[in-house]
């Protein structure tokens, strides 16, 4: 009798998961598997995609050797992500630390920092970026910092770096809403007893940050890195995503587009794998020290 009710309980579990599994399989897993087959085939008839012939890794090779547009676009998206991700993480971390301090109107600040997220990365944001609103917003600060005398003093190299920084800063800040909130929740979960113990031992704020806050936050930093990278590579306004869409729907090169998207996915997976290994080592080291 006991066993029977237990089995029944588990069966009910399956019934509850079933709708999700059906949907997930039909619209995620099976397309994923199918895109592998597509990427190593050629299609002669577009209608119904019936005549498929296996052609091996032809498309993958072509992407790197024959396609003049692919590599520059790919590199551009990679640089954007690699430059923006650390900026987003550092800014949202600093803002989260400030918000986690005992300041007034914390709720108000949190709402405001979340506002740009609501605009999404879709239509409205692209209209705003088209207008150059992001550049306008920071130009005042830039002019204040980079007067002609200073420009001469530091030389063109530094000026370029600062220019680059200012051209990215507004998009970076506007993309940090989710990260700020995730960091904030992480900071609030660190036990106050740790800080008190450190203060009793006469640790400075600087020591406390490096020896307590940062190590305790590593898992959450990892979470945010993954979120930021996936979000950046999946952004509908990025050049690669637009390129797939063009290839696939305007130029009808379905198989080539599938190969491109797999190169893209594998790159993201490898990148995240590296981040994971790296973070794991840091976590292990800090745990070992503790």
């Amino acid at each position, binding site marked *: 009798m006991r066993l029977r009710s237990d089995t029944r309980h*588990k069966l*009910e*579990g399956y*019934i*509850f*998961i079933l*709708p*999700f*599994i*059906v*949907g997930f399989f039909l*619209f*995620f*897993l*099976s*397309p*994923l598997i*199918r*895109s592998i087959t597509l990427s190593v085939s050629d299609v002669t008839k577009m209608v119904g995609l019936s005549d498929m012939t296996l052609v091996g890794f032809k498309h993958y090779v072509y992407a790197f050797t024959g396609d003049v547009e692919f590599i520059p676009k790919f590199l551009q998206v990679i640089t954007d992500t690699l430059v923006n991700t650390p900026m987003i993480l550092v800014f949202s971390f600093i*803002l989260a630390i400030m918000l986690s*301090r005992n*300041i007034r109107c914390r*709720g108000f*600040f*949190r709402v405001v*920092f*979340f*506002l*740009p997220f*609501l605009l*999404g990365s*879709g*239509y*409205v944001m*692209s*209209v*705003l970026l*088209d207008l150059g*609103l992001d550049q*306008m*917003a920071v130009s005042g600060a830039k002019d204040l910092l980079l007067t002609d005398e200073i420009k001469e003093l530091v030389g063109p190299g530094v000026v370029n770096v600062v220019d680059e920084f200012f051209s990215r800063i*507004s998009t970076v*800040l506007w993309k940090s809403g989710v990260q700020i*909130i995730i*960091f*904030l*929740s*992480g900071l*609030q979960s660190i036990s106050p007893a740790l800080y008190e113990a450190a203060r009793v031992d006469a640790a400075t704020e600087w020591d406390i940050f490096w020896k307590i806050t940062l190590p305790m936050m590593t898992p*959450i930093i990892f979470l945010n890195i*993954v979120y930021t990278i*996936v979000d950046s590579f*999946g952004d509908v306004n990025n050049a690669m995503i637009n390129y*797939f869409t063009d290839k696939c729907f305007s130029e009808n090169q379905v198989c080539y587009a*599938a190969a491109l*998207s797999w190169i*893209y*996915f594998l790159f*993201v997976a490898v990148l*995240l794998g590296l981040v994971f290994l790296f973070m794991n080592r840091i976590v292990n080291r800090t745990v070992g020290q503790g």
Partner: protein
Amino acid sequence: MENLQKTVIRRLRRVSPGRIVVYLFMLALVAFMALPMVYVIVTAFKPLEELYKFPPQFYVENPTVNNFFDLFSSLESADTPFVRYLFNSVLVTVLIVILTTLVCSMGAFGLVKHTPPGASVISGIVVASLMVVPQVTTIPTFMIVNGLGLMDTFWALVLPKVAVAFNFFLVQQFMGQVPNSLLESARLDGATELGVFFRIIMPMLRPVISTLVMFSFTSAWNDYFSALVYTTKDSMKTLPLALQSIAGGVGSAALARSGAVAASSFLMVLPVVIVFLLMQRKVIETMAYSGIK
């Protein structure tokens, strides 16, 4: 009166210069972060001559609602009335939000609270699939939707967005917080499993459900990609896609219709802001837990 003055002075003395710097910095950031939203709202009410001012202004001198009339008239010259796009968008968004919330939280409930054999495999696959950039599956999903004969139907816009790994993962992380003893006592009182789900799980997970509703609402409402891919008829377009086509595509500045574009941006953002403000308190509560576990 003298007393009041004294307290004010005493209070002001207690404020350290460091604090003032922090507040000033925060205020500058607030202005900066609110900028896109303020700009969208203000621009929608600018008369034509103010729209073309350079550099653009973040306030409006003579507010007008002409832009909205422009928008409606430029949409109405097409075969499909504006209301049709609005109807499509609302229907699709509402269906997505309801279905994904139900399917994902039921799934998470079955997985975490019933632990059937293979549960860990399923949750592993879900976590791994978080890393897949969605565009990888765009083409084959299109083929499947096409193969099922769903092109140009509402189902094509809704069904692929229901079983979303991220939504499932989010609810799954919170399911553990509901104590098993509570579920057991409900079962002893004769509640069915569906009763347990709707009467206990859903109310207890209200914060995470609000987060889910807000996220899926924002993404469904802003999404023009699905409509672009899965529909061909004008009458099946959703609002963001229709607005984009009157603006003349994303890339071109579409100067001639700046007013209509400004009004359309405002109309797109408005519902999202309303939903966020309604859900805000709950959402931020949940986010405050989701990072940890």
